[in-house]
C-alpha cells in the first residue's frame, strides 16, 4: 500500500531476529554455568573457549558431597511444601470471604490486607526473629515455616478468581441446604483448582528462593535450605568455580523442570492478575 521504505524491508528481518536473540541473552549465563561446571578447576582460568576440553562429570558428585546438599534439598522441599499447603488454606478461605461474603467493613479489611504488600519484609524480620526465639523455635522447621504461611498476594489472586466464577452453582447448593463451609469446600474450591495450582506454583518458587528469613531462622547446617546452602558454599569454595557452578546447576534445575511442566499456570497467573511482581 505504502511506498517501500527501508524500514518496511528491514523490520521483518529485525523482528525475526529479536526473539532468538533475546532468548540467547537470557539463556547464555545458564549455558555458561553448565559448561563451566564441567571444567577442571584450573581449566577455567586458562580456557579460551566456552566449552570444556573434556567434560569432567566428577565435579557434580564431588561438589554435592562437599556439603550436605541432600539435606539442604530435603529442607527446602519440606519448607516449600509446608508453605504451599499453608498458603492454600489461608488464601482460599480468605479469598472466598472477600469475594463472596458481604460483611460490614469488607472493603476496609481487604485494603488493610493489601496494604501489607507495601511493607518491606526487613521491617518485620527482627520482631519475627525475637518472637520465634521466645518460642524456642529458632533452628526448627516450625520456626522456619510459621511466618510464611500467609501470602496477601495469594489472597488477592484467589479473590479475583472466585469473583469470576458463576454464583449459580453455589446458590443451587445453598438451596439444597448446604451451609457456607459445605458450599465452599464442595462447590467453590473444586472450581478454583486452576487458581489454586497457580498459587501453589508461585508459593513454591517464592519459598524456594527465600534467602533472608531462612538465613536468620536457622543456625545449624542440618537446617539449612538450598538457597542458604549455596550462599555458604560460595563463601567456602570461593575460587573453585566449577564446584560452585555445579551446585548452581543443581539449584536451578528443579525450578526449570517445574516450570517446563507447569507453564500454563504461570500464564494463568499473569492473566488473572495482570502481573506478578
Amino acid at each position, binding site marked *: 500500500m505504502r511506498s517501500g521504505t527501508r524500514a518496511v524491508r528491514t523490520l521483518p528481518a529485525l*523482528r525475526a531476529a*529479536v*526473539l532468538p536473540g*533475546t*532468548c540467547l541473552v*537470557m*539463556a547464555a*549465563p*545458564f549455558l555458561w*554455568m553448565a559448561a563451566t561446571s564441567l571444567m577442571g578447576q584450573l581449566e*577455567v*582460568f586458562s580456557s*579460551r573457549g*566456552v566449552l570444556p576440553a573434556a567434560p569432567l562429570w566428577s565435579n557434580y558428585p564431588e561438589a554435592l558431597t562437599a556439603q550436605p546438599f541432600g539435606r539442604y534439598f530435603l529442607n527446602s522441599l519440606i519448607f516449600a511444601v509446608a508453605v504451599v499447603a499453608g498458603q492454600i488454606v*489461608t488464601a482460599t*478461605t*480468605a479469598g472466598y*470471604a472477600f469475594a463472596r461474603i*458481604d*460483611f460490614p467493613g*469488607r472493603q476496609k479489611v481487604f485494603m488493610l*490486607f493489601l496494604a*501489607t504488600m*507495601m*511493607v*518491606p519484609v*526487613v*521491617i*518485620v*524480620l*527482627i*520482631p519475627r526473629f525475637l*518472637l520465634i526465639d521466645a518460642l524456642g523455635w529458632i533452628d526448627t522447621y516450625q520456626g522456619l515455616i*510459621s*511466618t510464611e504461611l*500467609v501470602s*496477601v498476594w495469594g489472597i488477592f489472586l484467589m479473590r479475583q478468581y472466585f469473583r469470576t466464577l458463576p454464583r449459580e452453582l453455589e446458590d443451587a447448593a445453598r438451596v439444597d441446604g448446604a451451609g*457456607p463451609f459445605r458450599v465452599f469446600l464442595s462447590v467453590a474450591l473444586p472450581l478454583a483448582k486452576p487458581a489454586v495450582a497457580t498459587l501453589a506454583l508461585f508459593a513454591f518458587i517464592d519459598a*524456594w*528462593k527465600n*534467602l*533472608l528469613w531462612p538465613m*536468620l531462622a536457622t543456625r545449624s547446617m542440618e537446617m539449612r535450605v*538450598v538457597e542458604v546452602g549455596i550462599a555458604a558454599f560460595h563463601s567456602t569454595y570461593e575460587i573453585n568455580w566449577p564446584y*560452585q*557452578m555445579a*551446585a*548452581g546447576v543443581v*539449584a*536451578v534445575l528443579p525450578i*526449570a523442570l517445574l*516450570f517446563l511442566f507447569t*507453564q500454563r499456570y*504461570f500464564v494463568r497467573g*499473569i*492473566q488473572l492478575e*495482570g*502481573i*506478578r*511482581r
Partner: protein
Amino acid sequence: MRGRAALPVLAAVAFTAGTALTIAVAVRGLSDAQAAAARDVARMAAELWELAGGVDEAARAFLDDRVAIEAVPEGETRSGSGTHAYRTGSLQPAVRITVPPQPRMTPLPPAPTALALLGSLLMSAWAVARRRTPPAPRYPAIVALTATGLLGATAVTTHRWADSELEALSDGHATHALRAVEAALAIGADPERAVRVAGLPWATSAALTRPDQIWTMPRGVARALATVPNPPTASPFTVEASGATYHTGLVIPPTPAATTPSPALHLALLGYEETHAPTVPLAATATAATLLTALILCLLPLSTRPPLLRRTVTAWAFLAPAALLLAVFTFGPLLFSLWISLHEWHLVDPVHPFVGLDKYRNIILDTDWWAALRNTAIFTLHVPLAMAVALALALLTRGSRRAVRLARLALFLPGITSVVAIAVVWKWLLNDGYGPVNRLLESVGLGAVAWLTSPGIALVTLMGISVWMVVGYQMVVFQAGLAAIPRDWYDAARVDGAGAVQRFRHITLPGLRHTLFFVLVTSVIGSFQVFGLVYVMTEGGPLGATDVAVYHIYREAWEFLRFGNAAAMSWILFAVVFAATWLHFRLLERRTVRA
C-alpha cells in the same frame, strides 16, 4: 432470640477472662523472678559453702538460717525452685541447698484486681439487663469504651504493680549479693573469687561516673570481666539505687606504688524489673483480650439483623486463619518494630532503655544511611529501563505468540530461579581478571572492565543484571496486555491516517496503561528490597558503592546486633516505599481512571 442474648454474655466472659489472664500473667512472671532470685541466692550460698570447705556455718551466717542444706541421696538429681544442687568433685550431687523464695508483699495486685472485679460485675449486670430489653442495641459504644478502658487500666496498673514488686525484689537481691561478697572475703577468698560468688547478670562501666552511661552485659562476659588484672581489693561496698540499676561500687584505693591511680572497678547489679519485667506477655494478653471484647461488642449492633450477623460471623470464620497469622506475624511485628525503634535495643543485652526519637535523629544525620538510600534509589532506575526494553521486545515479537510460547523457559528462568545461583554465576562471568566476559572483551580488542570492583561501575552492573532478570517476564506480561487491545482500534486509526508513532501514542500506551502501572508499582516496591544480589556479589562494596538499604539494615541488625537502629531504619525505608507508591497512585493511577 437466644443468639441475640449470647453476644453480651460472650463479651462479659471475654472481658472477665481477659482481665484474669492479664493479672495471672503478671503474677506468674513475678513468681518466676522470685524463683530465679531464690535460685541465685541458693547458688551464692552453695559457693560460700564450697569456699569454706564444706562448712554449713558460712552459708548459714550469710542467710540467717533461711537456708536448708541437706545431703542428697545417690542418684537423685531433682531440683526445684530456689534449690541449688551442689556437686563436689565427682559428678554426684553432694548437697542440696534450698532457699525459699521471699514471700510477696501482696499475693494479688489490689488495684488491678479491684478494677477487674468492678468491670466484670458491670459487664455481667449489663449482659443480664440486655436479656430483658428490646432487641435494639443499647449503649454499645459506651459499653465498648468502658470495657476497653477498664482492660487497659487493669493492664497498666498490673504492670506498675509488677514493676514495684520487682524493684523490691532487686533491692533485696542486691543486698544479698553484697553480703555474699563480704562473707566470701571474710572467709578469706581473694577478691576475684569473692566477686564471682555473687556472679549475677552484672552491669558495668569502666568508670561509673554517670548512671546513664552504664552499659550492660551478659553473665558470661561479666564473669570474664571480674577477672580483670585490677581486682577489687577492699571495702567499701555501696549499693546505690539509681533508677533502674543498682550499683555495687567496688572502689579500689589507688596503690601507693603506682604512679597513676588504678581505675576503680565498678560492678552494678541489674534490677529484676529490667530483666524479668513481664511487659511483652502482659501487653500481648491485654491486647488480645481487648481486641476480642471489642470485636464481640462490634458485632452487637448487627444483632438486630440476624442474617447480617450470621454472614459477618461466617466471613470472619473464613478469614480467621489468614487474619490470625497476619496479626501475629505481620501487624504485631510492625508495631513491635516501631516499639524497638524507640529503644536502645541490643540482641545480647537484656536491658532496653527508652530513647524516644534519638535513633531517628541519629539516622537522619547518618551519611552512610543516606548513601545506602541513594544507592537504592539509583538501583530502582533499572525498573523503567527494563520496562522500556520489555515493551519494545513485546512490540517487536507481537503476533508471534506461538514462538514466544516455545521461548518461555529461556525468558522466565532468570526471574524465577534461585537468586543466589544467579548471583554466583554472574560473579564468575564478570570477574575482573579471568571472568569469561572480560576475556571475551580482550579477545576482540576491547579493554577489561572492573565490573564489580570499581565503585563507579558496580551499581550499574547490578542494575544491568536486574534488567536481565526481569525483562523476559515483563515482556510476556506486556504481550498478554497487547493481545487484549482490540485490533479494530488499530484498523480504525490506520483508516484515519495515523502513523506508527501516533498509533503507539494514542492506542497502545492507553491500552496498556493498567498493565504498565501495576508492573511499575510492584517492581519499584520489589526493587527497594533488593538483597540477594548484593549479599552474594558485592557485599555492599566496593567502598559502599552498592550498599543498598536492606543490606545496610541487615548488617546493622545481624552483624552489629543494633536492633534499635535497624528497626528505625526499616521504618524510614517503609516511609520511602510508602511515599513512592503513593506518588505513583497520585500521579498515574488517577489519570488512568480518567482515561
